[in-house]
């Protein structure tokens, strides 16, 4: 019997060792299933902000429980929209910062903005206002934003089809600045509707583009608009390297990498691709490049932008703006 007693004593001793340091597992049920209330009002850290100077706006609020919330900032002139969302019981520095970037184009301008906080299951909307004094600046090599018309060093070829329109437009549809390029027309004998060549010389650095050497740190970005109720457009970018920097791009011995974008959406969309991920295409199929087979962004001698469409389909149209190289994916 003594042994049984000792065993029981050992078990009780072990039992008494348990110390609970965590209060409870998971989110608070009391918070989750109680009525919503605002513990701290929805606020903006600044009445006005200069995003160009690296400033930002911090939105804050506190709730009595975890909620799905969404802040929608709308530019009163541009109608640009920025959305910030979360599932938390507070909006703070970890989730409520706005750096001037855009979720739905166009991009913000220097304008008054209205920020609305909506909470799932709560009928009320909470509003603050702020003013953008200067817009966010994206650092990188801008290939084309069409704000100053056609660069005389660019060359273009436009087929002589019907309803051809390869012109810069200035209207409220512009996603960045005030201008964008419209590309439209009917060419019933060829896929090509028109093209623009952007040579390195247009960017002031001689025979190749002033870009970093590491293709993993170079991103090509552009904004493309899909026109509703129109035949499908293809936008093909050809990045033509001049590997020996002799000022001549030789197709048989220099690399060419391609980005083919099938415009199957409506409205503006950001297209971003890492230069290192670009394939070499021939009629849309990946092939081995003809040069050293290495992605050398610093040796790009020319970029060709082609607007293509199936000739059987007839009229095709799309719009493009803000072609820019950046070192990280563009946050417009």
């Amino acid at each position: 019997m003594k042994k049984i007693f000792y065993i029981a004593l050992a078990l009780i001793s072990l039992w008494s060792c348990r110390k609970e340091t965590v209060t409870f597992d998971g989110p608070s049920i009391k918070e989750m299933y109680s009525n919503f209330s605002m513990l701290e009002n929805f606020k903006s850290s600044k009445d006005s902000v200069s995003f160009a100077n690296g400033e930002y706006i911090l939105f804050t609020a506190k709730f009595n429980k975890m909620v799905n919330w969404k802040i929608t900032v709308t530019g009163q002139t541009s109608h640009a929209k920025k959305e910030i969302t979360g599932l938390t019981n507070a909006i703070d520095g970890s989730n409520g910062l706005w750096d001037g970037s855009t979720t739905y184009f166009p991009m913000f301008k220097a304008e008054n903005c209205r920020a609305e906080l909506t909470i799932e299951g709560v009928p009320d909307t909470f509003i603050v206002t702020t003013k953008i004094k200067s817009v966010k600046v994206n650092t990188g090599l801008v290939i084309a934003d069409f704000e100053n018309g056609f660069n005389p060093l660019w060359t273009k070829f436009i087929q002589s089809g019907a309803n051809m329109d390869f012109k810069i437009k200035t209207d409220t549809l512009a996603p960045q600045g005030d201008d964008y390029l419209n590309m439209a027309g009917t060419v019933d004998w060829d896929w090509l509707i028109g093209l623009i060549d952007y040579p390195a010389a247009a960017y002031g650095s001689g025979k190749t583009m002033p870009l970093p050497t590491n293709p993993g740190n170079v991103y090509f970005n552009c904004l493309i608009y899909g026109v509703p109720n129109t035949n499908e457009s293809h936008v093909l970018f050809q990045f033509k390297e001049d590997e020996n920097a002799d000022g001549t791009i030789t197709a048989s011995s220099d690399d060419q990498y391609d980005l083919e974008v099938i415009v199957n959406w409506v409205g503006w969309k950001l297209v971003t691709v890492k230069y290192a991920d670009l394939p070499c295409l021939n009629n849309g199929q990946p092939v081995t490049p003809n040069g050293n087979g290495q992605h050398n962004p610093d040796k790009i001698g020319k970029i060709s932008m082609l607007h293509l469409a199936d000739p059987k389909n007839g009229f095709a149209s799309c719009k493009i703006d803000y072609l820019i190289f950046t070192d990280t994916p563009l946050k417009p």
Partner: protein
Amino acid sequence: MKKLKLPIYIILLILGATGLHAQQKRTINIIGGARSFISTNQIKVMDSIPDTTTVKKNNGGYALIDLGVDITPNKSVEILGMFRIKNYYGGFWGSGVSFDVRQLWLKGIVGNVFRYQLGDLNLKQTPFTLYNHHADRIDSLPDVFNLQNQIISYEKFYIGNTWRQQGANIDFGLNFSKVLKELNFTGYLTRMQATNFFTVPDRLMGGATVNVVQGRHISFGYNGFWAFDVKGTAPDSNTYHNSVNTIELEYTTNLKNIGFEVKAEAGTSKSVYSQDVDASLLKDYFIHGYATIRLPKQYLDFTLGYLNVGPDFRSIGAQSKDINYSAAPEYYNRYTNAQIPRPLSVFDVVRNENIYNTSVTSTLMATNPVYNNVLPYGIATFNTQGILAKINYKFPKGIAVNAEQYFLSEIRGQGTNSLKKFSQTKLLAQIEINKLANFSRELKIQIGANYQITSRKSDVTVEEVDLKSLQFQAGVEFEFIKKIDLLLGIVGLSNKGNDFLPVRNSYSKIEYFNSANYDLSQYLSAAGIRVRFLSDRIYLCALYQRSTYTDKINVNPDYQLDQFCAYF
């Protein structure tokens, strides 16, 4: 026809092997079994909008044969290979025929000391290391349901509390003349998950048990269980590791015809992912012990025990569930005009092999409060502490009564500091009237009930929990003509109240609580005739059974399933 060629070749090979058997005695044996099943089923949906979409009647069945070749090339080695041919009724010319390897293993003994087995293994350690608890299965099912339930065990290789694995196992024993009586060792290593060469690495599972018998009264041992990913077998290097280490102690003695037994196991566990240690690390311990007093003259056993399993105790070998509540049922997996998934019913739990797992799973499986809200992972259920008491009465002339009571509570609150309390009262009885009344033909009555209460009191009303579940069963088996049995049975289950169901992330940490309300009742009743042939294992049984599912809160529309089936 091509599909049929392989089985024909195998049969020819077996016939050839049988010839060999005739020449070399006791080297090759043909073993196996066969089963045929045919059923006609009907569903009736009680929805507010008449269900005109679901096909209400369904017929089907199959015949299968499991044929094994047991080869003993010498007295130290035994090899078993078993294949299955299954033919669904209505499949002709090979279109409904499947051919599978069902079992493959090799075992032997080296130097009359080390026993080993390679291939398929049925493994079990302790209830906290590697153990199939069958936590949600109904104890002491009436025979009319049990014969269907046994098919699940056969199909899923459940031999008691084992899990089926594939790998290698060794064991050996040593006898001593002084201090210790014997030492036994068992170790195994199995592959529980194969890599997909991308995101899923190879996952291995190993274990070791060392058991020392000190003398006539005392034995003790160590159990280790490890599941781990093999680094480098997939580009994703976030590897998983779960280890459980336990010690066991058993003491038995007799004092004046009264038997005493004390058994205890305690241990620790650790579960972690290599690339997210802070978020994924779970470490905890458990203690389980009980004392039993045996009164053989009174045919009585009394057991009193204590259970404490930490909130962060994780053991995938002991916390894998046999029922997968996310699996689709065999019949009518969608119903109503909207074709929503049909909720599982007692009918599925009792006889649907599709929802049962064969092997251990490495993620924490979902529980279902309808079927078990007290110990959903058996006694290895984490975040549980409390006491248990059991009384067993076994009268040799055909009366067996088992009663057990658990009083448990959480150790750490779930979404609140208030703790849930659990109570489980179980009563099972079996009376063999033929033995009591001394007549030869079997007449057996089985009854049982399991009443579970889950409650949480709190100063905050919204946190309160009150869920009561009653499951009962009754059955009769009567051999009214020699070798012909009448089988009757009913299983009922009702759940009423509310609880909060945790939604866990991939690290098994709670991210949300779904509020669940129940007012559900289910009945499964059956009647059948069984004709036994040469032995009790060869029989023809015709059954009619009805299952009703009534949800008064109407989370899911009510339905009724009727089935007529025949087994051979």
